[in-house]
């Protein structure tokens, strides 16, 4: 009695499982790619952090050190780009 429904449903379930496997593989690959990007972006993040800190330290040091007329003028041009 349930046979026609069951057969149809079995076929559908089979297709569903196949599609699900494919989706799983694709998502795993996507995860892998995104993880690689994130790892690579760690350098970007680190570089940004270091540059920020460098500029902050440079600015502070320039402010602190006794500035003669010419040096202060030159260094301010460099720091002014921050």
């Amino acid at each position, binding site marked *: 009695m349930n046979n026609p429904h069951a057969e149809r449903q079995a076929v559908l379930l089979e297709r569903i499982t196949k599609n699900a496997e*494919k989706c799983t593989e694709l998502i795993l690959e996507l995860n892998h790619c995104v993880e690689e990007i994130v790892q690579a972006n760690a350098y970007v993040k680190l570089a940004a952090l270091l540059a920020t800190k460098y500029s902050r330290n440079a600015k502070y040091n320039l402010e602190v050190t006794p500035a003669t007329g010419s040096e202060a003028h030159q260094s301010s041009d460099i720091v002014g780009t921050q």
Partner: protein
Amino acid sequence: MPKSIKELKPIPPNPPRWEPSTDPSSIAIPGLDATASVNDQIDQIDQLITLKLQDIDANFSKMQQVLSNRILPAVKRFAIGTEPVREAAKFWTSFFEHAAQVHIPTSDHLSSMQEPSSSSDDHDVVSTPESSSATPGPSSNTFDLNRTPSESSFLPAHAAVSSTPAAATARAQASNSTFFASQPSIADPSWSALVESPLVRLDRELREFTRADPEPASTSIDTDTSPPTPTRTPHVPTRVLADRTPHYAEGYDEEPTLPVGMSPPVMLPFARLPTLGRSPAKSAAAHIRHTLVRDALRDAGGTSATSATTGSSAVLSPPSLSRYTRGASASLTSLGADPELDSLMRRVSLFPRDPPRVSSVPSSSTAASPMTPPAPSGAAAGVAATPESDDGSASTFSSSGEEDSVHNTAHPSAAFLLASRQRGRHDDDDNDDDEDDSLDADPDAATASFEPVHPFARVVAAGAEDDSFDSLDGDAPEETVFGARPVKRGAALPLRT
């Protein structure tokens, strides 16, 4: 089609998840006719299940299509597109690390260094931002802005090295200065290898190489088989560098005999001329000279002196080409359209005669070779000229020997032998035909009948070995440019005039 952010449709929120109710009587199925009989309801439920499964299947397939066709390619394009940004970021991180004399490990370094140093690395990571942000004054961990670049970059000894902080680090390394104290020793090679510029690396390797083993550097000036130093060949450094990196991973100190970090020197095969076996160059040259003189004297009536004849032989028209063509035309009419090697073999087997004028054969042929270009009628002459041009330049191959089968003058090719034999046959006729023995002697007849002979064709007579022409000869010695064949040279010496 990539859309801008503004054009994207707002994502609808997910519908609330269905949660099964514990009480079976309270289950309400939309689409089900509750008034129908139980069996009908069961059928309806089955149909609803089937439809639901179809929807699920459709959704899954749609997901798979979207993932494979849109998302993954976009992610990969993003990765490729941001590659330059990452490279620049790597450079700048190394720049800042060298400037601050600090190593900032990332996840790559952690995975390569395999965790035991992770605690110390974490300590480094924690300490570095703190130190860089905390103190304004100069410290060992922060950028020492008070230190002028002049002391690092303007050293005359390192003029070839770039004046970036990488150079300073390389010099510090070369002088065995210590890095930040908590650096694990394993991390140094891989990190420094990663971070160094190729110029710095090359410079360091040169110094290490010369310091550790000065002799190979000095003997590298030798020509033949010296191992190439990095200074010699531009391609060696990259290969040495490529070899060095895994060497670093293994550890420095396993090869006390080699300089630190250097892979064992490998000899690159230089491009050389094919090595030829030895042949009696001087005797060959003397023999050639004698035959030339004899030929010239014979041709000119023997009036002029030896030196003049050797000079005049160059001026005289080549006497020998027609001999080849005549001989070839007489002998090769029967061959027709046979292929070259077969014709050569047949010819050789057909004419197992000795060259009567042993001494005159090579002289006229060598006189012929530099003078005239091979004529179409003189295809045999051209063939004869070709091995003779090789023989004429045999003085340069004075080291030729038995090994090189192609340029082996001790075993001349069958074409040369044939030509020499034919020439020897007609040698008596050509005493008066010096002027006429140019390229224009019966070209048409010769070209019609003559088969081109491959100059380097090896004659394989029946029952004979590759390099032995014993089956071709009789008992008399076979004359070559350098004299009789080496097998019979000793026996045939008294026969030469």
